[in-house]
């Protein structure tokens, strides 16, 4: 029994520690720095959808014992499977490049010199983790270090109480002229950063790696609901901190160094250290997870041998395709786009293609051939579809507006 509670605790803690990554750090800081508390709702809404989707993802793996991509292909056929696969290839490639960029910036905050110098080394480390690290280490190691992100709350308490005017932006956001499109753009980027489809694939793949069964449903629900619920508080803390520190100084959080200023101002050198360490751990962990999720998706969809616990030579196609994908993302990262900008492209595009990425999965979650009595309840479908559609509609409205105005970060 105690082992079981230990597993539940670890599941919850790692979910908290791995909640933020380059996407949520960037969008939360930009949201706070530009609109005060006015976009906290997007973090909360995105988290609700993520909790539902991750609960489904774990439940699917535990009950059906099938793989995510395998089920999509079996249920809809090969031609249809190519649609969510293409969406995943584009979003994950941008996101992996951004995560490696975020990790490199974290290293440069520690060791100095330009982040681009560290980028190849970070890519090599990500590949090494993918190539040889055991699944448990990938899942738990960066996430435990990522708990340093809880120090964002310490930063808030060091700064003091937010002014009533700032608090009121939560329900009454202030728009300066021409900022409505930016508001919507950051809202959609926040939703795209929070409801990450790669997490759904990674989580279900992980559940298969760990041979989950119906007995694992409790752990699944606890880590999905409690872990991500508390995890979202780290993103909300960064919104608040950025609103209290960066907004009054008119600093737009356009680079990750600017984002780190909020912690530096709140806690001095210790704050800078905490920010850099949390950024490193969470971005590095997310980079390996994105890479694994993409490799799972392709290998499972094509029916190849897969698994992080196997030697690379035992699952050769899985490891080769992951290595090639990492190379592609590495090249995208070398094109010269700043990681913050790349993150915004990745997260807004993610939001735009959310229906393509996740509707097929929702349909599978209602298939009693796979899930029996554990199939989705109607409210789960309705709640998920509503959030996906909200993200999609705001994306359709805001992205053209931002492109026309030449903005976006």
């Amino acid at each position, binding site marked *: 029994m105690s082992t079981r509670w230990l597993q539940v605790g670890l599941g919850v803690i790692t979910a908290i520690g791995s909640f933020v990554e380059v996407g949520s750090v960037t969008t939360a800081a930009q949201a706070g720095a530009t609109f005060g508390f006015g976009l906290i709702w997007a973090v909360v809404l995105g988290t609700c959808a993520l909790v539902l989707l991750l609960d489904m993802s774990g439940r699917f793996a535990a009950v059906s014992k099938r793989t995510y991509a*395998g089920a999509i*292909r079996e249920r809809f056929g*090969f031609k249809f*499977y190519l649609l969510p696969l293409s969406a995943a290839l584009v979003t994950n490639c941008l996101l992996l490049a951004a995560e490696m960029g975020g990790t490199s910036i974290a290293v440069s905050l520690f060791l100095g010199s330009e982040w681009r110098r560290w980028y190849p080394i970070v890519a090599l480390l990500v590949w090494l983790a993918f190539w040889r690290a055991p699944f448990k280490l990938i899942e738990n190691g960066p996430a435990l270090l990522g708990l340093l992100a809880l120090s964002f709350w310490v930063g808030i308490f060091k700064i003091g109480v937010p002014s009533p005017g700032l608090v009121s932006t939560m329900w009454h956001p202030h728009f300066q002229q021409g900022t409505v499109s930016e508001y919507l753009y950051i809202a959609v980027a926040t939703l795209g950063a929070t409801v990450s489809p790669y997490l759904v694939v990674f989580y279900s793949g992980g559940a298969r790696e760990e041979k989950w069964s119906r007995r694992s449903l409790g752990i699944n629900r606890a880590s999905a609901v409690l872990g991500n619920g508390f995890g979202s508080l780290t993103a909300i803390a960064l919104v608040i901190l950025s609103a209290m520190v960066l907004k009054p100084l008119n600093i737009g959080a356009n680079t990750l160094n600017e984002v780190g200023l909020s912690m530096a101002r709140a806690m001095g050198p210790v704050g800078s250290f905490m920010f850099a360490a949390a950024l490193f751990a969470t971005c590095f962990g997310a980079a390996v997870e994105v890479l694994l999720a993409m490799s799972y998706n392709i290998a499972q969809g094509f029916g190849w*041998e*897969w698994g992080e616990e196997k030697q*690379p030579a035992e699952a050769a*196609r899985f490891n080769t395709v992951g290595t090639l994908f990492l190379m592609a993302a590495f090249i995208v990262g070398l094109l010269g786009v700043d990681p913050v900008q790349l993150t915004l492209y990745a997260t807004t595009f993610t939001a735009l293609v959310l229906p393509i990425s996740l509707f097929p999965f929702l349909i599978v979650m209602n298939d009693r051939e796979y899930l029996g009595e554990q199939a989705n309840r109607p409210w789960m479908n309705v709640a998920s579809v509503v959030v996906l559609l909200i993200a999609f509609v705001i994306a359709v409205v805001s992205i053209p507006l931002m492109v026309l105005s030449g903005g976006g970060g």
Partner: protein
Amino acid sequence: MSESEMLSMRDLMDNQLETADGRMIGRVADVEAEWRDGGELVLANLVTGPQALAGRVAHWLEVVMRFVFRGRFERTIPTSEIEGIGPTIKLRGRAEEYLVGQSDRWIARHILRYIPWSGYW
């Protein structure tokens, strides 16, 4: 499997192929049937390969794949090799007995062995 069990294409197409030693070697991309004397149409082979997959997407893509690969990677598994049918199709033989999924071994032998810590022996 009982004699009277009816199967539809959905029971076969895109399903996982797993060998007797538990290796996942691919998914069914297509099937081949045989028209026998006496007017019997019998399922003969399960097919895998890029050409068969391309044909599932668009006819022109299959033509392109045929031109590029000339059927070099198309593989068939006789239905007599099928041990059981479900979302996973269990095969009677071990992985090395099938041409399907040999690319896993080819990549390990010709590429991964030169990369450190690949576990190739």
